[in-house]
C-alpha cells in the first residue's frame, strides 16, 4: 500500500545560540544585520559545532539539527528515537511550526496537529466543558467540530460527572485523561506526538495506544511519534529514525532501529576479551578473562539460527582461597532491555573457592529463544550469607537469532507475520479428535 507523500523534510538544520542573552547580544545582532545588508552570510553560522552536550564546545553556536531528510506517506507511523539533547524536540518544534529551521524546507500536504504536551492552554479556573472547547480550538478545531465530538470526548475521558467543575479541582489523572481525550479526537492528516503517553494509569495508556493504532490503521492518518519507551516504539511504529547529536544516524524498520539504539556503542557483540588488559573487570576475589557465544561446533558466533543450539562460555579467575562459593551467571535480556531470566550452575557442581582459572559453559537448546536480538550479562558472584559481586558486564554479549525461511517451513507455514514473544520453545502437544 503506497499512499501519497504527505511530508517531505529536506535538509533541515537548526542553529542555536547557547548561553545567556546579555550585553553581547546587541553587538552580535548588529554584526549579523551588517553582514546581511552587505549580502554576506551570517558570521556566526559558520562557527556552529556539532551538538554533543557532553563535550564543552568552543563556540557559542551549535547545530541542534543538521541535514535531516525524510519523507512520510499517508498512513505511515514514524518513531523518533534519540537521547536527551539529540534534537528530537527541536525537530518536532520545527515540524509543528513553533520555531523556524535555519536552513532547509519542509513541505506538507494536509493539516498538522502536534501534541507536544497534553492540556496545552488549559485554564484551571475554567470548567472541564470550557476547557474542552478552548483546548480544542488551540489545537485547531472549530467550535462546531468540537460540539459534534463533545460527548465522545467526555466519554473517552470518563469525566462525565465533573464536566462542569473547574479543572483545578480535578485529580491529576482526570486532568490528563481529559486533555488526551481532546487531542485524540483531532482529525488532522498528520499527527505529531511527543511522549504524552508517559502519563496516566496503565489502563488509560492502553486505551490511548489503542486509539492511536486505530487512527493510523483505519483512518490512514500519518503519525510521528517520539518516545523513550522502546516497546512503545516497536509496537506502534512501522518505521523509526534515530537522531544523535542533531544528525539522523538511522532510518529503517522500527525493530531494527530499536536494536540499533539499544546496542549503540557496543562492539564485539558475541565476544568479550580482557586477557591482555592490565585492568580486568573484577576485584580481589575474581576477574573476568573472556566470554563468548559459540555454536555446537565450537565456532564463535553472534548470529545464530533459531533451530540450532548454542553455548555461552565464560573464562574467569578465582584469585583467593575463600570459603565462599563462586558462581558464574548469565543474565538474558530482550531487545528492549527487559529481563528474561538469569541462569547459573548449581552450587554443588563447582569447586568451592579454590584459586585458579575456570571455564564454564551454559548450553542453550535449539528452538528455545524466539527470533530477535538478545543481550547477555556476564557476572561472577560469591555466595555465602549474602551475595558478593565480583564483576557484572550487563549487556556484555549481544546476539541475533534469525530464522532460515527455507528450512523452517514447518514452523511458519501457517503464520503470516512475526510470531510474538521472547521465547519460542518446542513443546509437546497432544491433539485428539473428541467428537
Amino acid at each position, binding site marked *: 500500500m503506497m499512499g501519497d507523500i504527505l511530508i517531505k523534510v529536506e535538509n533541515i538544520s537548526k542553529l542555536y545560540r547557547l548561553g545567556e542573552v546579555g550585553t553581547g547580544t546587541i553587538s552580535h545582532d548588529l554584526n549579523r544585520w551588517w553582514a546581511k545588508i552587505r549580502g554576506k552570510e551570517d558570521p556566526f553560522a559558520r562557527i556552529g559545532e556539532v551538538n554533543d552536550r557532553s563535550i564543552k564546545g568552543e563556540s557559542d553556536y551549535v547545530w541542534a539539527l543538521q541535514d535531516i531528510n525524510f519523507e512520510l506517506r499517508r498512513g505511515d507511523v514514524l518513531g523518533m528515537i534519540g537521547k536527551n539533547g539529540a534534537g528530537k524536540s527541536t525537530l518536532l518544534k520545527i515540524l509543528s511550526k513553533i520555531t523556524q529551521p535555519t536552513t532547509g524546507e519542509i513541505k*506538507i500536504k494536509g493539516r498538522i496537529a502536534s501534541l507536544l504536551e497534553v492540556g496545552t492552554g488549559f485554564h484551571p479556573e475554567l470548567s472541564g466543558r470550557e476547557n474542552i472547547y478552548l483546548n480544542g480550538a488551540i489545537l485547531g478545531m472549530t467550535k462546531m467540530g468540537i460540539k459534534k465530538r463533545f460527548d465522545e470526548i467526555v466519554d473517552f475521558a470518563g469525566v462525565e460527572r465533573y464536566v462542569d467543575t473547574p479543572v483545578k479541582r480535578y485529580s491529576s489523572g482526570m486532568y490528563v485523561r481529559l486533555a488526551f481525550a481532546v487531542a485524540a479526537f483531532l482529525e488532522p492528516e498528520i499527527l505529531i506526538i511527543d511522549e504524552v503517553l508517559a502519563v496516566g494509569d496503565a489502563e488509560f495508556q492502553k486505551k490511548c495506544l489503542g486509539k492511536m493504532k486505530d487512527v493510523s490503521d483505519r483512518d490512514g492518518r500519518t503519525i510521528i511519534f517520539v518516545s523513550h519507551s522502546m516497546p512503545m516504539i516497536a509496537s506502534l511504529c512501522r518505521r523509526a529514525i534515530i537522531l544523535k547529536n542533531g544528525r539522523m544516524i538511522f532510518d529503517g524498520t522500527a525493530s531494527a532501529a530499536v536494536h540499533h539504539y539499544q546496542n549503540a556503542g557496543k562492539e564485539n557483540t558475541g565476544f568479550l576479551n580482557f586477557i591482555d588488559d592490565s585492568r580486568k573487570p573484577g576485584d580481589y576475589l575474581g576477574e573476568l578473562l573472556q566470554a563468548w557465544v559459540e555454536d555446537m561446533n565450537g565456532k564463535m558466533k553472534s548470529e545464530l539460527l533459531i533451530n540450532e543450539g548454542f553455548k555461552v562460555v565464560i573464562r574467569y579467575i578465582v584469585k583467593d582461597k575463600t570459603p565462599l562459593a563462586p558462581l558464574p551467571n548469565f543474565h538474558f535480556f530482550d531487545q528492549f532491555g527487559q529481563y528474561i531470566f538469569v541462569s547459573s550452575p548449581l552450587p554443588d557442581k563447582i569447586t568451592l573457592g579454590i584459586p585458579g582459572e575456570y571455564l564454564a559453559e551454559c548450553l542453550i537448546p535449539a528452538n528455545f529463544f524466539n527470533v530477535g536480538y538478545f543481550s547477555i550479562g556476564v557476572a561472577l558472584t560469591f555466595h555465602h550469607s549474602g551475595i558478593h559481586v565480583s564483576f557484572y558486564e550487563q549487556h556484555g554479549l549481544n546476539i541475533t537469532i534469525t530464522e532460515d525461511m527455507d528450512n523452517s517451513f514447518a514452523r511458519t507455514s501457517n503464520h503470516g507475520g512475526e510470531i510474538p514473544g521472547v521465547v519460542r520453545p518446542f513443546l509437546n502437544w497432544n491433539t485428539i479428535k473428541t467428537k
Partner: protein
Amino acid sequence: MSDSKENIGLENAENWTEVISPSASLFDLRLKEVWRYRDLMMLLVRREFVATYKQTILGPIWFFLQPILTTITFVLIFGKIARISTDSVPMIIFYLAGITLWNYFSDSLNRTSTIFKDNASLFGKVYFPRLVMPLSIIISNLIKLGIQFILFLAFWLYFFLVKGNVHPNIFLLLTPVLVVIMGILGLGFGMIISAMTTKYRDLIFLLTFGIQLLMYATPIIYPLSSIPLRYKWLVLANPMTSIVETFRFGFLGSGYFSWGSLLYSIIVTLIIMGIGILIFNKVERNFMDTV
C-alpha cells in the same frame, strides 16, 4: 542528472498545502489563517473575562469601580489640591472622559506588550497564528471599553440633561473612528514592545514607566489649552492627544479639534502598526529560541 530535472517538475505539480522554510514574507499577516482560528479568538476573549473575575466577590462590578475610583482620585488630587484647570467642564465628567479612553489604550498596550512572555509555555507547545492573541486582547478590551462607556454616558447624560453644562456637537459621531485608531495604536505599540521584550527584558521595566509618562504627555488630567504655546507641539506630537481632545470636544464642547491633527494621528498609527507587524512577524518565528 536528467533525473533530478524531472523530479523538480513532479514536485511542482504536487500541491503542497504548506511549506515551512527559513524565509517568508514579513508583511504577510496570514489573515486567512487567523480567520480560520476565529473560534479560538472568541474563546480566548471569553477566558479573559471568566478567568479575571472568578473568585472575586464583586465580579464584573469592578469594570465600573475602576474608572470611578480613578476619577475620584483625580478629582481630589489634580482638581482640588493641584487645582489644574478643566476648561470650565465639570471635573468628574472631564476626568472620566479621559480615563475611559486612556484605560482602553493603556490596557491594550500593556497586555499586548507581554504576550510572548506571558504565553511562552503555550506558544512553545502548539502552533496557531500568534496574531490571534493580541487580537483577542484588543477585542476583550473593546468589550470592557463598551461597558465603561455606558458608565461614561450615564454621567454625561446627567450633566447634559440635568445640569446642562456640557455642550455636545456633531463631532461626537467620530467616536467609533477614535476607538479604532486607539485600538490599532495600542496593538501596534504593543506588538513592537512584545517582540522586543522576548530578547531584551529590560524593556519590561521601562514599560510601566513609559506608559505613565505617556499619560502625562496626553491631555488626560489637563486640557490642551492649558499648555503654554511653546510646548504645545510636544504634546501634539503625541498621537493620543488629538484623539482625547476630539472625544472631549465632541461630547463636552470644550477641547481642541482639527482635521489636520486627527489625520496626523491616523498616519502615525498606521506607521506604528506597519512596524509592529513587521517586527512581530519576524520574532514570532524564532522567539522560542530566545525567550
